[in-house]
């Protein structure tokens, strides 16, 4: 039998980037802006984190730079979909193209034609949280992690509080549900949406950074490889609620690590590894079809806001 600590540990490891990106997506979509650009925002985060960490030798600076880059990359999405009222899905798809193209282009430019960065010399390390990490089983698995994971925990908690216990959160939700109502209540819908999309850029990029300077150690074309889309799935699966999103992301992380680690315990003798690899996706489909059913998106998500519109 696999030991539970290891399994949970690796599940959390895998879900960290998903949690960050999906919570990022939550801000954006709660404000009414679809964010299919999570993939691109993660890419730009992973890229910036790797490059800046290589340059400065300090992963914290890398992480901060990634979050700034994420905000910058989110701005075109905001401008196109909020100010210019472009189709938000379309604009998101464009951002995905843009992020991948730009980052690989820059990598090639900076590293003499190479398709990926050199290995990042100074990575984040796993640090045990005093006391908490000594709790049996879950201690070492939840609290002996990368700083990005702790950031993810923090982000979930803060988001939950912000969303439901602060004026800002209430306004954010109102903007995503009924922007005209918010506008007549004196809330600047456009501004709220810009802020939300920018937050989503910063968080998704932080998730991406985790891939290149915490669990991974380089940036290349395939560093993010679809995790942004999985985050989006986690967001929908988690019903746009911070705790739901956390659960969904952990679920994905858990099934990915199950498939991977299963090999070490000889499961692949019985089940081919590809079949194990399919597990998370099959489980998700079953879950969606079976118990989760419809998830209600914020009412105004995907609709450009027209001032005075009906």
């Amino acid at each position, binding site marked *: 039998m696999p030991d539970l600590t290891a399994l949970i*540990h690796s599940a959390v490891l895998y879900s960290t980037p998903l949690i960050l990106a999906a919570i990022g997506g939550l801000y954006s979509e709660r404000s009414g802006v679809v964010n299919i650009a999570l993939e691109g925002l993660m890419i730009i985060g992973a890229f910036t984190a790797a490059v800046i960490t290589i340059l400065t030798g300090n992963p914290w600076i890398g992480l901060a730079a990634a979050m700034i880059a994420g905000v910058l990359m989110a701005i075109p999405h905001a401008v196109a979909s909020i100010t210019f009222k472009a189709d938000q899905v379309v604009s998101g798809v464009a951002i995905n193209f843009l992020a991948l193209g730009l980052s690989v282009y820059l990598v090639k*430019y*900076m590293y003499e034609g*190479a398709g*990926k960065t050199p290995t990042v010399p100074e990575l984040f*390390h796993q640090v045990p949280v005093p006391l908490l990490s000594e709790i049996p089983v879950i201690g070492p698995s939840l609290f002996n992690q990368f700083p990005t994971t702790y950031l993810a925990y923090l982000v979930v908690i803060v988001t939950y509080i912000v969303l439901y216990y602060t004026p800002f959160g209430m306004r954010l939700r109102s903007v995503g549900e009924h922007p005209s109502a918010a506008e007549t209540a004196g809330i600047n819908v456009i501004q709220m949406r810009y802020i939300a999309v920018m937050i989503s850029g910063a968080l998704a990029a932080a998730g991406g950074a985790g891939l290149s300077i915490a669990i991974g*150690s380089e940036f*290349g074309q395939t560093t993010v490889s679809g995790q942004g889309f999985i985050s989006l799935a986690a967001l929908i699966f988690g019903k746009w609620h911070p705790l739901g999103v956390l659960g969904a992301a952990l679920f994905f992380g858990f099934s990915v690590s199950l498939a991977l680690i299963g*090999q*070490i315990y000889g499961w692949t003798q019985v089940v081919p590894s590809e079949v194990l690899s399919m597990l998370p996706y099959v489980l998700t489909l079953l879950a969606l079809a079976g118990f989760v059913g419809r998830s209600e998106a914020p009412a105004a998500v995907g609709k450009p806001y027209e001032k005075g519109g009906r």
Partner: protein
Amino acid sequence: AGCGSGQQGDQQGADQEAFSAGMVTDTGGINDESFNQTAWEGMKRLKEELGVDVKYLESKRDADYVPNLSRFAREGRDIIWGIGFKFENVIPQVAKQFGDAKFGIVDSNLGGNIPPNVVAVTFKEHEGSFLMGVIAGSMTKTDKVGFIGGISSPLIKKFEVGFRAGVKAANPDAEVKVAYAESFDDVAKGRSLAQNMYNNGVDVIYHAAGGVGKGLFNEVKTREKGKYWAIGVDMDQSSLAPDHTLSSMIKRVDVAVFEVTKQVKENKFQGGKEVELGLKDDGVGIAETTSKHVPEDVLKKVEEFKQKIIKGEIKVPSTEEEFKSFQ
């Protein structure tokens, strides 16, 4: 502007006089810290030592192999390399189309049907891996060692089987945990696998997984020195974790590319044949840095096995079948 240093000098294109060689990477790209990169080292040496006009093309998708090879062929390059077993299916196709051009492929023997204008270079990775197995088997304190593979294929299987045979030969009690990442570039997976293996009592891990292997080194670096070890592949990877790397299995793709191209230049092209390079030919071998952490007696044992293999006294298995009959 900074672009591939090898490309700078030859922007004029291939003029008719100079001897020219082209190399097409697989989707791993030129700086894969693996065989594409090593092959390019060989090409650069050709340029420096023999003044060969060299150039590479990266492939974005598998569908790019044919146009990339054709492009070099139409340029009239004297030899065109397809680096990696992914070229297995396309090389014969293009070779047929451009009957006058010469091609080389690394890591595949094209199933034995090698066209007359193609040379196929393969390596006896299982022999080198056997020695890694000997080192791992001798160094383990827990009698548990690990192997991390990239995408499972007959090629990577050669590494695995050779390694297991080596472990068995050196330490029959040791158990080998095997896992495949099913990827050559997902560093995170490599790290997860390594972490779990180490947590399960494995203390030496060998990988044949390209970029995935970096995850192994990232993980081992964070662990207690002198207790947890990693073994690298393709080139000397000890720089990735100097205090934790026992050894690396070297695969001299650069030498192969260099030598074969040189032969073509000297009009000694041996088309239609497979060139298989093993321990005997120095096509595979042990990293020099091995002596840093591996004690004298183990090195001696390794050397003994190496000689036996070279002499043919030991036939290292390269498939599961052969492994079963390996004593």
